[in-house]
C-alpha cells in the first residue's frame, strides 16, 4: 500500500477484507499450514459458542433464566426443524445439525463486527462443510439401506424407456447439491460484505472531497445503515437455510421415500 500521496482510494479496497493473512507461519511437508486470521476467527467463534453454551447450561434450573432460555430456545428450534423434516429417526442427528447451525450463525454474525474477518465468505470453508454433508448423506444412505439406496436415482413410476434419461438427470441433480449448498452461503456473505465496503468507501471519499460533497456523503451512510440491517437478516437466514437443507438432504438418506 502506497501512502506517499494523500490518496485514500486504496484504503477501503472492497476485497481487502477477504484476504487471508498468516499470523503464525507453519509449513509441514511442503504444505502451507499457517495459522491464519481465518483460523484465529474460527477459534474465536468456537470460544464464543462454548461460552454461550457453558454459561447457559452452568446451573440448569427448572425455571430458566435469560441465558438458559436463549440456549434452550435455540436447541428447541433445531429439534423442531429436525422433527419436521426428518421425523423420529432424525433425533440422532440433532447434535450435528445444531453444531452446524450455531457455527455458521455465529460466524456470519461475527463477520458483521467492525474489522472482522468472515470465515463463511470463503468457498473453502463452505465447500468443506457441503462436501462433508454430501459424503455423510451417501454413507448414511448406504449404511441404512444398502444397495437399495441407489433406487434414490430412480423415481417411482418412471417408464423403463425413460430410465436412461432420468438416471443421469437424477445423478446430476444429486451432484449439484454440495455446489448449491456451499455457493449459496459463500456468495451471500461475500456479496453483502463487498456492498457494505463499497458504500463505506463512498462515505469516506465523499467526506474527503469536502464542501457540498461531504453533505452528499450522508446518502451512502444511510444506505450502509439499511444494508447492515439487511445483512443481519441475511446472516441469520443463510445459517437457517444451510441447516434446513442439510436436514432435507439427510432426510433423503434416512427415510428413503422412493
Amino acid at each position, binding site marked *: 500500500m502506497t501512502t506517499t500521496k494523500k490518496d485514500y482510494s486504496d484504503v477501503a479496497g472492497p476485497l481487502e477484507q477477504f484476504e487471508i493473512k498468516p499470523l503464525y507461519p507453519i509449513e509441514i511437508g511442503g504444505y502451507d499450514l499457517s495459522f491464519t486470521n481465518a483460523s484465529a476467527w474460527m477459534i474465536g467463534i468456537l470460544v464464543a459458542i462454548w461460552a454461550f453454551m457453558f454459561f447457559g447450561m452452568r446451573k440448569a434450573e427448572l425455571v430458566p433464566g435469560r441465558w438458559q432460555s436463549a440456549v434452550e430456545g435455540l436447541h428447541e428450534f433445531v429439534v423442531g426443524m429436525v422433527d*419436521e423434516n426428518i421425523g423420529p429417526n432424525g433425533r440422532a442427528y440433532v447434535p450435528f445439525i445444531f453444531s452446524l447451525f450455531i457455527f455458521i450463525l455465529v460466524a456470519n454474525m461475527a463477520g458483521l463486527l467492525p474489522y472482522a474477518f468472515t470465515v463463511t465468505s470463503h468457498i473453502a470453508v463452505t465447500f468443506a462443510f457441503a462436501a462433508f454433508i454430501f459424503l455423510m448423506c451417501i454413507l448414511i444412505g448406504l449404511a441404512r439401506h444398502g444397495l437399495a439406496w441407489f433406487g434414490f436415482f430412480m423415481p417411482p413410476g418412471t417408464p423403463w424407456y425413460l430410465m436412461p*434419461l432420468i438416471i*443421469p*438427470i*437424477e445423478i*446430476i*441433480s444429486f*451432484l*449439484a447439491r454440495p*455446489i*448449491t449448498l456451499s*455457493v*449459496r452461503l459463500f*456468495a*451471500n456473505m461475500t456479496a453483502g460484505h463487498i456492498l457494505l465496503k463499497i458504500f463505506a468507501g463512498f462515505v469516506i471519499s465523499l467526506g474527503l472531497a469536502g464542501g457540498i460533497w461531504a453533505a452528499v456523503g450522508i446518502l451512502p451512510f444511510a444506505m450502509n445503515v*439499511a444494508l447492515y*440491517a*439487511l445483512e443481519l*437478516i*441475511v446472516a441469520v*437466514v*443463510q445459517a437457517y*437455510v444451510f441447516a434446513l437443507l442439510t436436514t*432435507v438432504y439427510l432426510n433423503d438418506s434416512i427415510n428413503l421415500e422412493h
Partner: protein
Amino acid sequence: MTDSRSSESLEARLAAAKARANPEADPRSVAGNAFAQGTRLALELVAGILVGAALGYFLDRWLGSSPFGMIGGFLLGLVAGFMNLMRAVNREAAKVTDAELAALPRVEDDDDEERLF
C-alpha cells in the same frame, strides 16, 4: 375486571392478541427472505448446468468424444437444474401452507391469556 369479560369482548381481545402474536411482517425481513430465496433458486439452475457440463467435459476427455459429451451433459444438466428448481419451489410452497396451519392453534393458547387466569 374479571366480571366485565363477556364473550363478545373475548372475541375482540382474541383478535387483538392474535394481532399482537402475529404482527405484520417486517418489510426488511420480507426483503431479506425474498433475496435469499431468489439467489437460492437462481443457483439451483446454474449448479445443475455446471455439474452437467463438467461431467460431459470429463466424459469427453476420457472417451475422446468431444464435443458431444459436453453438449449432452449441458442439456442433461439444464434439465436437472430445472428439476432441482421445481423441487425447491415445491418445497417452499409446501412449507408455507404448513407454517400457516401451524400458526393457527398457537394463537388459541396464547401466553397472555394463560397468565390472567
